[in-house]
């Protein structure tokens, strides 16, 4: 993660549960310019794709600290064997050296042929752990029936990793992104690595599945602050809530004995699809709007958070509502599609005032900038 200093202190003050992942001192030594160049090179070499299969093009292998200790043992044994003029000890040291070499091939093999697909993730809310499910498919064309891959770890830059002890032919890994911020989240490349078979080598690669996710504002429970005034004249429907009725066709469900035969979908029945009932809803109640201007709160983020909670709440209650942000109006409706539309609008809301007024907002944009850099 490439973040400004000022922001990181601020964020830790704001979010106590945020997991600050420490980089090792070795990583810190690398100058940022080199990191950027490396990142750009990787981006060219492993461009974002919906489906990525690991091959020699993108697998890097370097010894781990334990691997270096192993080499030290090899040298020690060689000196030991030389001083005692013992060929068998020298032989043992050379055998260990050869095992070291064999492990390179096996660590390569453990990653090679592994295919990654993104799976549609669940809703993401700011400040909460968000997981991107990724489908891993083993090497199917393998001659050996062992298509498993061992100890695959996956992580986004600067985030915690997830470890799959053993992949079956198909496994789902949930790659974690801690504490995302409101707005469009592009987590960037997933680093995939494994220390199999002996922990002597770390074989790793970067998988860019072109992931992005709109992170909804963090819901904060609040009173329902509905505005009943007509915001716009062209809205003819001004109902507040829906109940089962006859006016609006909403869909099909299976027939329950005793229901009116009038509502049976005979067309579907004729097509051999079984007895289905057409469902109709009837809107009722007063027209409602959620309005940013009318929402109470200390700052913009809090207001948006409250709006986010209300959108979910109202959708659960099957309430019809519209959403008025300063620059955007979403007409009244209900249902999950409407909820997501509203949440997206809230998530991507940018205040029109000067940036300096809202430090959180600035932070947000910088974070996304950072994520973009990482790509």
């Amino acid at each position: 993660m490439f973040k400004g200093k000022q922001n990181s202190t601020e964020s830790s003050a704001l979010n106590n549960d945020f997991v600050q992942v420490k980089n090792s001192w070795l990583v810190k030594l690398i100058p940022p310019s080199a990191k950027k160049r490396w990142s750009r090179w990787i981006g060219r070499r492993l461009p974002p794709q919906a489906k990525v299969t690991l091959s020699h093009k993108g697998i890097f292998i370097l010894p781990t600290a334990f691997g270096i200790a192993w080499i030290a043992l090899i040298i020690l044994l060689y000196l030991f064997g030389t001083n005692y003029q013992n060929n068998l000890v020298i032989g043992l040291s050379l055998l260990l050296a050869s095992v070291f070499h064999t492990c390179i091939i096996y660590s390569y093999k453990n990653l090679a042929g592994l295919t990654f697909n993104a799976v549609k993730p669940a809703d993401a809310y700011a400040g909460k752990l968000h997981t991107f499910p990724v489908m891993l498919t083993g090497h199917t064309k393998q001659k050996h029936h062992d298509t498993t891959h061992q100890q695959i770890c996956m992580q986004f830059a600067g985030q915690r990793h997830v470890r799959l002890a053993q992949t079956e032919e198909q496994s789902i890994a949930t790659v974690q992104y801690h504490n995302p911020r409101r707005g469009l989240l592009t987590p960037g490349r997933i680093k995939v690595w494994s220390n199999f078979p002996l922990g002597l080598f770390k074989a790793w690669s970067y998988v860019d599945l072109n992931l992005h996710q709109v992170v909804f504002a963090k819901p904060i429970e609040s009173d329902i602050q509905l505005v009943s005034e007509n915001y716009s004249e062209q809205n003819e429907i001004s109902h507040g809530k829906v109940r089962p009725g006859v006016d609006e066709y909403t869909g099909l469900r299976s027939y329950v004995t005793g229901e009116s035969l009038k509502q049976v979908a005979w067309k579907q029945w004729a097509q051999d699809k079984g007895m289905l009932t057409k469902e109709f809803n009837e809107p009722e109640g007063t027209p409602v709007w959620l309005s940013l201007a009318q929402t109470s709160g200390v700052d913009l983020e809090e207001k948006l958070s409250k709006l986010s909670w209300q959108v979910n709440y109202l959708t659960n209650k099957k309430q019809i509502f519209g959403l008025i942000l300063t620059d955007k109006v979403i007409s009244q409706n209900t249902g999950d599609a409407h909820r997501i539309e509203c949440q997206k609008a809230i998530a991507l809301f940018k205040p029109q005032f000067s940036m300096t007024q809202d430090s959180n907002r600035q932070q947000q944009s910088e974070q996304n900038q950072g994520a973009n850099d990482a790509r």
Partner: protein
Amino acid sequence: MQDNFDSIISRNTLFWLLVTNVAVLTPQFEHATAWTLAICAICFVWRVGIYFGKVAAPPKLLVTLLAIGAAITLGLVSSQIGLLNALINLLLLGYALKYIEMRQIRDVKAVVLVGYFIIALTLLDQQTIINTLHLTLVVVINTCVLISIYQDKRKPMANALFSFKLILHSIPLAILLFVVFPRLGPLWLVPSMKTAKTGLSNELSFGDITNLTRSAELAFRVGFENPDGSTTGPANTDLYWRTLVMENYDGTTWRQDDSIINLQRQAFFQNIQRKMPTTTDETAKVYQYTVISEPSHQKWLYGLDEAFSQDKGIVELPDYRIFSIRPVDQRQSYRVSSFPNSIMDAHLSDEIRQINTRLPAETNPQTWQLAQQFKRNYPEPKARVSAMMNHFAEQQYFYTLTPQILGEQQIDDFLFNTQAGFCAHYASALVFLARASGLPARMVTGYQGGEYNPKAGYYSVYQYMAHAWTEVWIEGEGWQRFDPTAMIAPERILDGFDATFDSQTSYLQDSPFSTLRLKQYPWLNELRNQIASLDYYWSVWVLGFDEEHKQQLLQKLLGEVNTTKIAIMMLVSIIVILLFIAYFAGLLQFRPKQDPINRKYHSILQRFSQKGLPNNQQLPPVSYLQLVEQHAQSSQPGLVKLFTQFTTLYVMLKYQPLTSQERVDNLKKYNRLYQKLTLKLFTIKQISDSNSHSFL
């Protein structure tokens, strides 16, 4: 960026740690002191307790205290058991204590690395083929621990198989490296094992060699490399393996001279070399041979007359012996060239002459008188020594392994009173006589003879062949070998030691199970020779593999050796090895293979069509099953039943979502059915559908 991976040791790993602990520690049994063994055992039992969940991990303080206590105790006893042994024990204790104290994967890795080092320590004194195979197995087990960390398999056997595979794949490259890797001389002095020394001693009192003569242990083996390719050495009468030269006699004991002892001490720091005789003379004989010494824990080496060795870690002392700068704690092989015809010390310096004519004052007066008599009668030195030798033959002297205890005037008592003794008695007496008559003379100990193994072409020299003889310096001829024992029992020298004592066999009474006793049975003796040959080749080509063997081997493989050829050979070998590993790791595929499930199904269909059924491979499996039923239900109900099961499994494997376990199980069943069907179809001649037609 840690998950709990590093802090939780899996049960599989714990299991392998238990196995590894036993496997690594048991071969060190001999070196461990009693209480090291006790602590190791307690740690092991504790670990077993942890494994079964009976006890908790020990508190860190206890482990630390134990470790400190053990280190201090070892420091105190290190002078008794020797530095290297103390270090080994320290390592074993550290291993055992770290073993119960493991909490993290990091600790496990440390234990594994130390495990490899302990295996290397074991290899120091266990070097036979069997030992090597055993310890390779221990390496596999030790590697298993690491694999069990990273390979998530529920069965420990899966880890073991993979570990075995990994080591097996690594062996070809290890062998290549073993051949080409440079061998250096020892870089610095290292502590050596303090073990009971075997073989000759650098002090010789007359009672000492009796014990040696009774031991049937192997002392060393020698392979001669003659220019004509034969492997025979000089005649048995010339096989005098010089080992020690003793010049000081105090009336009871023979010892090496201080000047030589000093030289031996400085051997590591000064590269002492003698001048190799120039072999311009065509008649000058040269013997080239390799000696493979069994561990004697001494530094002296064996060689024939005027021995030279260019090997690293070997010096050539001025008394014409070769000497190792390190004790021979393990089987050691070295090359020697011998020049039997060259003169040892053409000119004798005053100092050496003085040392070699010195005798303890006022001892053995009778012998003195005898010497003066010889001096008067034979003024010519060579004739005088011959006369002395003849004296032993003419007088009534007997050879015995159980001589009487000699009085204070040892030589007098022996020469004029008991008149019975073994080689040391006779050699001492001759040296005394020669010195008393004014001739420089000295005592040489070593081995005499050797048993030739015609299979592998080498000589075995056993401890019972230990011998003592005399060297007398004669003007113009240098040091000349005289063996007075030969005058007493000449058969011993002419036919080898075994012939002399065949009836007596007392010399083997200490080793009733010696394979030497098998000599009576020809085929058993053959077997003994075969096993001995294998061991010999192992010693020469593996334990004794050095730069010279490397040159020989490369020459055999490549013809003329040059760097380009070696580079090409290396490159080709490495590529072959890489392909080999990659293939077995499953990275290479030579041709895209058909899915085995499909292949088997279609091969069965093929067989059906051979037996007279319509060849319709495109039919859905269930329809084809119906077809088979139609044709064969009446004639081959068993076959139809098998094929029904087979088809069901085929459909299941191809089209139904299965868990991996189900898949494996079904695949097994499927393969078994395939074999049965193949067999059944093989036995059936023709599926007669005429029958079924008649029923329709």
